[in-house]
């Protein structure tokens, strides 16, 4: 790539449009058909390898679209030491692709010498708040940039939590200087699972800190809702998304689909629904 092209690319911000989570089965079609979509997001860890097909595809796609890197494995809330190798892999990836956004989750994932490779819930206590803010600060220092931190779905609550989840999320952003990746589906899932009003959550979100919104589908076949990203976005979540956009203002919005991955067209149709809601909000604001 020429220096000029690289400089051009460096300036590529993630636009206030709808994007899709880029998954391996869709790469060839994305390259061949270059659908009209605002941006793409990938799971950072899937590109920690040095070479091969994943990078060949992503280089091509990055040339056509702004990119967001979304981490699932750093475990910012874990008490195990922050994995500097993991952080360095992420740093290399950021240097290679110059993403517009870099995000991680408000959760923990490793303890007792083992990784559980899942987004595990923190107790909402002062201790956990201080701990996770310190770790986010450390990660932001190493990477030399602001991270977006995403609220996660949860299937249990700790009895000794003293802070409502929405206040915890807001306080993490305020103390650590991180931005918020607001997953509207996760708010809905937790509202149902734990019995609170999702609007209470939305009202507490510091709107200026939100840089990205996630939408995805959940599984409702069991005794609680599970965030599988394996179904279309639910009607109730679209309603909540409209509410979120009305409060926060139009914001880059991603549709995620990770299990039972459908045809690319189906995913693009979900994203265009989000694009429609963003356009309505723009029209109201104008």
């Amino acid at each position, binding site marked *: 790539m020429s220096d000029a092209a690289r400089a051009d690319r460096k300036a590529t911000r993630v636009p206030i449009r709808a994007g899709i989570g880029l998954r391996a089965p869709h790469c060839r079609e994305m390259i061949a058909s270059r659908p009209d979509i605002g941006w793409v997001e990938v799971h950072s860890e*899937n590109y920690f390898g*040095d*070479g091969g097909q994943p990078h060949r595809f992503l280089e091509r796609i990055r040339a056509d679209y702004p990119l967001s890197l979304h981490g699932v494995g750093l475990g910012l809330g874990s008490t*195990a030491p922050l994995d500097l190798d993991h952080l360095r892999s992420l740093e290399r990836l950021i240097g290679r692709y110059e993403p517009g956004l870099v995000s991680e989750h408000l959760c923990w994932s490793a303890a007792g010498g083992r990784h559980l490779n899942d987004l595990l819930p923190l107790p909402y206590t002062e201790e956990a708040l201080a701990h996770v803010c310190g770790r986010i600060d450390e990660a932001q220092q190493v990477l030399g940039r602001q991270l977006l931190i995403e609220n996660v779905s949860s299937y249990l609550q*700790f009895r000794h939590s003293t802070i409502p989840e929405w206040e915890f999320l807001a306080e993490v952003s305020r103390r650590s200087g991180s931005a918020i990746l607001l997953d509207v589906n996760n708010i809905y899932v937790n509202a149902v699972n*734990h019995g609170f009003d999702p609007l209470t959550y939305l009202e507490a979100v510091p709107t200026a800190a939100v840089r990205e919104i996630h939408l995805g589908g959940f599984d409702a076949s069991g005794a609680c809702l599970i965030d599988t990203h394996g179904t279309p976005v639910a009607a109730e979540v679209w309603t909540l998304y409209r509410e979120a956009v009305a409060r926060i203002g139009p914001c880059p919005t991603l549709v995620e689909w990770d299990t039972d991955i459908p045809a690319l067209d189906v995913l693009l149709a979900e994203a265009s629904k989000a694009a429609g809601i963003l356009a309505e909000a723009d029209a109201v604001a104008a």
Partner: protein
Amino acid sequence: MPSLLELQTEFARALVARDERSLMTEWIVAGRGLAPDERIGVYRNNVFSNYRAVLREVYPVVLALVDEPFFKGAADAYVSTYPSRSGNLNDFGGELGDFLAGWPPARQLPYLPDVARLEWAVEHAFHAAEAPLLDLTTLAAVAQEVLPGLHFALHPASRIVRSPYPILRIWQVNQPDFNGDRSANLDAGGDTVLVIRRGATVELERLSPGELELLQALAADLTLAQAHARALEADPALDLTELLRHHVLDGTLVAFHHDKEATA
């Protein structure tokens, strides 16, 4: 009230040990249709399902050789024996071959561990670094008398897997696009397989005994002359020119340097 460290340590232990009477149950809010141990169970199910999905993706041939309950049992026992050590799930699963070699239910399938090792080599090759083809003009310019002292580097996306079982045949007949006779004769002798990514495609090829010695010696940074001598011990009729032609043109050997540069 547990500290954050106590909570995470006990949560991790209770998930993996399948401990339903863990202290954890006392720390979780009851109600809304699910008891605390059922809520832990949701996470346990998510965690183990994730790991099974990763192993299914990396080990499709092992999966094809056994039935679903066997694979699930192996996967879950593997997770307990070889904990994940990385926040990157792509690092998970590399010791499945070693695990299967010591797992009693797999004893009747003695070739299974080596098939798993072969599949992990394929996974490694898929993600490993790129390396351009060796510069033939520079190689051609090397004087004949200097050639024996050259060292060669193997492609970073290459690995050699050896087995007393015909693992290449087993791997080939269990590919989704394979048509024809799916039988493999276990008494047919073993396979030595070079797993290498050429471009974006991972390829598997059988190595002769002399070829194996040659490539292993070069990988150990011996000179071409030393590697050739070892290869001749394994196969006195070895055609060095033909082997070099193949492994240079097809990208197994991707760089070379002179003996003096190595010691300089």
